């Protein structure tokens, strides 16, 4: 089945603008509609796996018109977005009962999804910016959704830093347009290949890296994340950490660096270094946290580092004219980790929401012994922790294993050592979570709490099952249809332009 590409943006966008109509009376209808939208997106994303094509909006052929491009990398990201958003949306049914203004929440949520889908599909650098702004603005509002003092402060910080990132990107887009005369990514790439890079374009590349780096929370551009992610309602934290930083940051960065400008030694090293610094700083900051969601947020910085490391290492090998099979392995590790992290980090944030809803606190020191009171939350959180810490046979182990193998194979033993070391740090921080939340002594004031029911459990349990089963994605058939095309897009680099123009 070939899915018309604009549908991915249209469904959430239309639903988002439809929902406020239902106002207070039709809360239930709005919830059902929003869930239908995310579920249908999930179905469409699964249906579009393994396809690649170009859609020209309004039949205006490029470079005159706007195009949407579906290739391996986009469909991988579409899949990740729809899995996480379906689970988070389903979780919201029960979780958001503690908040007012349900319809507004749902439409902001869907706007964010529309923005992300647009970023992933856009074949045009200015449209990418527009969709990125839609998703970002929706997320600023959602971070401050609780309207408490902390939430608003976090939202403000996030907005200031996020807008700086957006301005950098916009400036870079303008520079690129001025220097190549095109906004279409394929044509920009073609122009760069034939004319080479001039100082204006390299300056634009630097601005792109910083701008997308701000969205991806690479260290040192990460400062907004530890405030913003914990302040949002739990399903939104799951969306932000699980998928937003990867779509707006990692995906866009990889697309620009690999497919438009072409990877060079300098950018390869830069991405690798960002990855490593992020892994280390995120991990060490996460140790010291006593706020559960803040710990998870710092851990996200560390985990995005893994993804960057995989992509950067692959890029470095390509730039050095090394063995392309090694580069593919590194990139495969990075992308697989991206997908894994989307699933288990969103699960971890959902469980943190379940814990917060039951106990009314996020402070690790105020909890303890919840294993008996919240058995399902405990089980799912343990599965997710095992996955993120890389304990076999859970999903995280496989992606880290691939990354380690790739770096040993390429001769970067020290990179392998850092990966393994950070993996150990991750294990220790999640042992801390287990120890203070689920083990130990139950405090007096929490004797009466009960497990959450209904949609929250369904969402958590289904994501936990995914954590257990995702290792199977490496089996030859699934790997060939999900990862191989995505890896190929990055490894092929600037031949993206020829592919898109030829399609």
């Amino acid at each position, binding site marked *: 089945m070939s899915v018309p590409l604009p549908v991915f943006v249209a469904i959430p966008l239309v639903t988002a603008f439809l929902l406020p109509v239902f106002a207070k009376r039709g809360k239930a209808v709005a919830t059902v509609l929003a869930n239908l939208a995310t579920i249908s997106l999930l179905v469409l994303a699964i249906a579009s796996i393994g396809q690649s094509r170009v859609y020209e909006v309004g039949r205006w052929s490029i470079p005159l018109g706007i195009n949407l491009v579906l290739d391996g990398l986009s469909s991988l990201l579409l899949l990740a977005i729809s899995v996480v958003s379906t689970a988070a949306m389903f979780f919201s049914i029960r979780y958001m009962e503690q908040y007012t203004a349900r319809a507004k929440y749902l439409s902001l949520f869907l706007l964010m999804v529309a923005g992300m889908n647009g970023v992933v599909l856009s074949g045009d650098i200015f449209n990418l910016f527009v969709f990125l702004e839609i998703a970002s603005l929706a997320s600023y509002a959602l971070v401050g959704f609780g309207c408490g003092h902390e939430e608003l402060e976090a939202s403000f910080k996030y907005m*200031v830093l996020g807008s700086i990132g957006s301005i950098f990107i916009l400036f870079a887009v303008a520079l690129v347009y001025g220097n190549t005369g095109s906004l279409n990514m394929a044509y920009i790439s073609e122009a760069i290949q034939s004319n080479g890079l001039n100082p204006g374009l390299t300056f634009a590349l630097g601005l792109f890296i910083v701008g997308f780096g701000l969205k991806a929370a690479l260290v040192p551009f990460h*400062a907004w994340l530890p405030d913003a992610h914990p302040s949002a309602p739990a399903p939104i934290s799951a969306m932000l950490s699980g998928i937003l930083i990867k779509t707006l940051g990692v995906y866009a960065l990889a697309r620009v660096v690999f497919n438009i400008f072409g990877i060079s030694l*300098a950018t390869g*090293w830069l991405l690798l270094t960002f990855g490593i610094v992020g892994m280390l700083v995120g991990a*060490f900051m996460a140790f*010291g946290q006593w706020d559960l969601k803040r710990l998870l947020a710092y851990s996200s910085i560390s985990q995005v580092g893994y993804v960057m490391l995989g992509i950067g290492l692959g890029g470095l090998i390509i730039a050095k004219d090394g063995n392309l099979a090694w580069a593919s392995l590194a990139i495969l590790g990075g992308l697989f980790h991206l997908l894994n992290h989307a699933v288990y980090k969103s699960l971890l944030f959902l469980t943190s929401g379940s814990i917060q809803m039951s106990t009314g606190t996020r402070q690790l020191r105020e909890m303890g012994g919840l294993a008996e009171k919240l058995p399902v939350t405990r089980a799912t959180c343990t599965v997710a922790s095992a996955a993120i810490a890389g304990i076999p046979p859970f999903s995280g182990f496989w992606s880290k294993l691939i990354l380690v193998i*790739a770096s040993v194979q390429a001769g970067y033993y020290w990179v392998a050592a850092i990966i393994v070391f950070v*993996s150990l740090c991750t294990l220790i921080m999640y042992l801390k979570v287990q120890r203070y939340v689920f*083990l130990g002594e139950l405090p007096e004031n929490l004797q009466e709490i009960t497990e959450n029911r209904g949609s929250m459990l369904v969402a958590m349990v289904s994501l936990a099952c995914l954590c257990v089963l995702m290792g199977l994605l490496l089996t030859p058939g699934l790997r060939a249809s999900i990862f191989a095309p995505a890896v190929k897009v990055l490894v092929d680099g600037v031949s993206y332009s020829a592919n898109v123009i030829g399609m």
Partner: protein
Amino acid sequence: MNLGKILPILVFLPLAVGFVLLFLPNKIKFLSKALALIISVIAFALGIRIFSLGQLDYSFPVLQIGNVNLELLLSAKPLGAFILMFAMGFGLLITLYSLKVHAIHNTNIYYGAILLTIGGSAGILLSNHLLFLLIFWEMVTASLYLLITTGGKNSNFAATKSFAMIGASDAAFLLGILMVWALSGTFVISEIAKGPVATTSSIPIIAFLLLLTAAITKAGALPLHTWLPTSGEYAPVSVMALLPAALDKLLGIYLLVIIVREIFVLKSAALGVVLAFIGAATIIIAVMVAMVQHNLKKLLSYHAISQVGYMVLGIATGTPVGIAGAIFHMLNNAIYKCCLFLCGGAVEQQAGTPELDKLGGLGKKMPITFITCLIAALSISGIPPFNGFVSKWMVYQGIIQMGTSAQAGGAAKLWPIWFTCAMFGSALTLASFVKLIHSTFLSRLPEELKDVKEVSPLQTGPMIVLASLCVFLGIFYHVPLKYFIYPALDIEPGTAIFGTWASGLATLLLVAGIIIGGLILAVSLLSRKVRIVPTWTCGEVQTNDQMRISGTHFYKTVSSMGGLRQLYTGQEKGHFDTYNQSGRLGLALTEFLRWLHSGILPVYLTWVTLGLLIVLFIVCKIW
């Protein structure tokens, strides 16, 4: 039918059932007990079958990532199959014993993790592919964590510490494996064994040290042993008997043997010294700490560490008799240490406390526990004719052989040091078990323990089995050597003859000696007139019942000796604990980073600006 197919059954049946048990709701306890019992019986039967069948192979291609071939290769090799049989046996005994243990929180996780341990250990011992070995290895680590958490409220710290430390060693293991892969081009152990990696340059030496770290952490040798006493204090005793006392030793030493014999050729004299030093230091230091412990379980845990030293030392000798002795000691240690922990568990369960101060005189109340514990204690102290003596004797022989042989290595020249440590350690072990036996079973029975009874037959059963194995393997030591250990190590039975130790005659003489001694005692007791009077202290008369010598302070003179005292206090405070020290270092770094993250927006904007400058600097090549 291809008999190789029973190998994956033995590995994956317990793993699958165990995994499901973990997630069962807490209400259906009976089901998990029954399933655990059935599966462990099947596993034991399969273990015996595999050993009796000899060489078996099974392969199943799982994945091909790049040029890495991840193939499930299971093969029953003599050494692995022999250890496997005993490992499955321990699994069954512990499952039986646990059925009557009350101190377990969350039954389903407990039995699920026991099955995961059984399946994981089988996987480790059968795996012929290093990556799969690692995967099973980590599963056993994770199930140890789950098992310790079933010890109740206070076990959370112990569980975390154990998982963190063993997890660190697992990380080292992964790196080591990949370095071996980079050096030899394959993950398959039997392929590597054809041309082992020579430790001549820095990369192979680092790889060797990384793998060594994994092996000795699991086995619990210094300096990475500190998880063991901590978990010994808080975990359920049956867990300690299963993993740290028995299976972790089997697995750790198995890995060490694989590393030394199949993966690497030790060409560096320094590595031999390192290995022997780890062994000797572990023996002496751990036993010195064990002597002054007040807690029954903690004391046993330190002995579990100390005994590892003999195995490491035996392997470090590199002589056939030394390695055979190490393997035999590994088996013996697993048997008597498991028995000791089970006895300790029985005492704790009935008396309600593991503190030696509060115990005493239980010999009459719990006769079976007393006798089995005594046999195991004599065994661990290396008293003939029990099994511990034979294997220690072989390790001594190995050290002497290494010293007297022509080979000129650093470790060989220093042999008197290793020898002294091993002998002295054995003497101190005896000393510390005198204290344990005295203060638990012999001294005066405290008032509170008047109603203590013997534990149920389900619990004494495993203890009796293990104690009789101690006696059997001690007297008929030829049997296990001939049928299990020499074939497993490819040693010609004739070559490894050691000393002239005729166990049969010696046992008869010993028994005769004991009988004569008993007679003399009986005669002197009958002929002597004894007057019992109340104790008179400084004008106060005290009834004899209040006069208890608990035995906890037997060796106080040692711990208050100048020089040693400071070391003991430092040890007590955790100054020598790798976990505490690295934790402190990590937290210091975290504090620094937290100081950087001040939460002030302009500071963060400065970071962004600096970052932008650096990125532009690199991308635009402004230099």
